[in-house]
Structures are given as structure tokens and as C-alpha cells.
């Protein structure tokens, strides 16, 4: 979706502000939100792409005004209500009012913590041969799906070069909609700064994205 989350190339957000000796969490609830999201994902309530899509669907003014963990919290709440794991009445009461919906992977226990903090694996067996190889020139498609995609706006319509073939991976565009993993070839594609940002862009800049095969067309 063409949301405010797709920030590459936008102006006006000001300077980057590094914080010396930054703590891991700035408040206790941030750690709790991180734990809740990881636990519910591990319990099978949603996949990582669905959770990203719910954060992207936050209203733009909410998204832009919320901290990272606030976005995680709001996205989690919307997602759990939509998937029927909690009800609006539970949220209003601040505790479970309705009987809980069973989780796909059963009860989440303390012994699961270490396992769920390790990243999932996203590589999959290839259903077909790759269409592209390193060195090929490709164009990022000019597509604007209203649902989840990992093709950022700033590369759409632009020409780049395949640099690396990462093999086949879960396709976020379908996984986010719970429409299957639909594995696709994944490539690192490099774009010249001038191709993306025009003659006024930094002539020494090269930017790469990781692009799934359906995002690309041959030249």
C-alpha cells in the first residue's frame, strides 16, 4: 500500500538524532510490547508480514506521531481483534472478558522464549527456475497494490542491475494477506543514484533493494 511507512526519499523529517548511551528500552511497557508481539507471533496468531501490514494500516497521523513500540502495540491490538483473539470488550475492560480463542501452537511457556527470539527461516524450495541472473538489467514494475508489498515507491519504474540471487523466499505480498507463502526468487537489485533522484542527486550514490521476482520486468 502507498502508505506513510514507505518513507524512502521523503523530505521534511529533520535531522537524525543519535542518543548517547541509549538504553535498550526507554520505558518498561516497551519491553512488554516487544514480548507480547513475539509471543503471539510464535503462538501462531499471525506471521511477520501480517504484523507489518497492520502497522502500515495505522492512520497516517497516528503512524507518524507514534514511537516504534507504540506502533507495535497499536498494530497488535488491531490484528488480535480482527483475528478474533481478543474482543473490543476485552480491550475496554483491560482484561479478558470473553473466553479466549485457542492458539494454533498451543500455550506459550517460558521455555519457548529463547526459541521465539531467534528469527524464522524464510528460504523455500524453488517452484521454478529464476528468470534473472546477476548482471541482468531489470525495471522495477510500476505497481501500486493497495495491500502489503515490499517494493518501495522510490524505485518503481526505475532501471537497476541484478547483483545477487538469494534463492527462493516466502513472498510477503501473499503471506501478509494469509494467502499462502507463494515462494518467489529474491534478488539484490542496484540502482544508480541519478536513476532514482535525477540529475541533482548524489552522483556517487548507489542504492540496492532486495526485490522479489514478481516486482521486476526484463528490459
Amino acid at each position, binding site marked *: 500500500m502507498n502508505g506513510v*511507512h514507505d518513507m524512502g526519499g521523503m523530505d521534511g523529517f*529533520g535531522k*537524525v538524532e543519535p542518543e548517547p548511551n541509549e538504553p535498550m528500552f526507554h520505558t518498561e511497557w516497551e519491553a512488554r510490547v516487544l514480548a507480547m508481539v513475539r509471543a503471539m507471533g510464535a503462538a501462531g496468531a499471525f506471521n511477520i508480514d501480517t504484523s507489518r501490514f497492520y502497522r502500515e494500516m495505522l492512520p497516517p497521523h497516528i503512524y507518524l506521531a507514534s514511537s516504534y513500540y507504540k506502533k507495535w502495540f497499536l498494530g497488535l491490538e488491531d490484528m488480535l481483534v480482527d483475528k478474533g483473539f481478543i474482543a473490543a470488550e476485552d480491550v475496554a475492560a483491560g482484561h479478558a472478558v470473553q473466553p479466549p480463542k485457542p492458539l494454533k501452537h498451543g500455550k506459550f511457556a517460558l521455555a519457548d522464549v529463547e526459541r521465539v527470539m531467534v528469527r524464522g527461516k524464510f528460504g523455500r524450495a524453488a517452484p521454478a527456475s529464476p528468470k534473472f541472473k546477476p548482471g541482468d538489467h531489470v525495471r522495477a514494475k510500476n505497481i501500486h497494490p493497495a495491500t502489503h508489498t*515490499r517494493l518501495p515507491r522510490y524505485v518503481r519504474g526505475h532501471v537497476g542491475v541484478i547483483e545477487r540471487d538469494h534463492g527462493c523466499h*516466502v513472498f510477503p505480498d501473499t503471506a501478509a494477506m494469509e494467502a499462502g507463502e507463494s515462494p518467489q526468487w*529474491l534478488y539484490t537489485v542496484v540502482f544508480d543514484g541519478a536513476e532514482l533522484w535525477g540529475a541533482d542527486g*548524489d552522483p556517487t550514490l548507489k542504492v540496492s533493494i532486495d526485490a522479489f521476482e514478481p516486482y521486476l520486468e526484463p528490459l
Partner: protein
Amino acid sequence: MVVCTLCSCYPWEMLGLPPVWYKAAPYRSRAVKDPRGVLADFGVSLPKEIEIRVWDSTAETRFLVLPMRPEGTEGWSEQQLAELVTRDSMIGTGFPKAPGAPS
């Protein structure tokens, strides 16, 4: 320089949880268009002829930068060299510490 313009993808297993600035709009918006401006916010400037490469982490592949070996570290052990490496030098927004610099 490594960024995630769409959310905040970051090599957690290697570098820990990302700092707030990595997840915030100024870095996510500018890294792909004006990386030299971003570097200036970190007090870093590079010669005009140096190519800048930005990796936007748009899939589940995670990236980190292998920092340049500082001058004056010939013959140093792996452990000595590791002490010069900073988190930001692996994101690509800073250099490793110089030999003898305060830690």
C-alpha cells in the same frame, strides 16, 4: 550504509535491538536519497569521490558493514581489533575507533 525504509529491519541477532534513530523517520527517509547528509548528522564526512552504497533491507535478508581496518593496527589480534569496532561502524554511519582513542 544499511537502512530499512519500509519498517525497521535490522540484524538483531548480531547487533542487538536497533537504536531509536534507526527506526525513526529522519533516517528511514533520508538514507537512500541523501546519505551524505545523514553522515553529517553523525559528524562523519567522506571525500566527494568515494562511492556511497546504501542497502535497503526490503526482504528478510539482513546486512551489516564490515568496517575498514584502521591504520596503525598491523599485527593486532582479533580481540584487539574487535575492541575498535562500534555498532554504528557496522550500520555504516561511523568509522571504527582509532587505535589509542578513548573508548
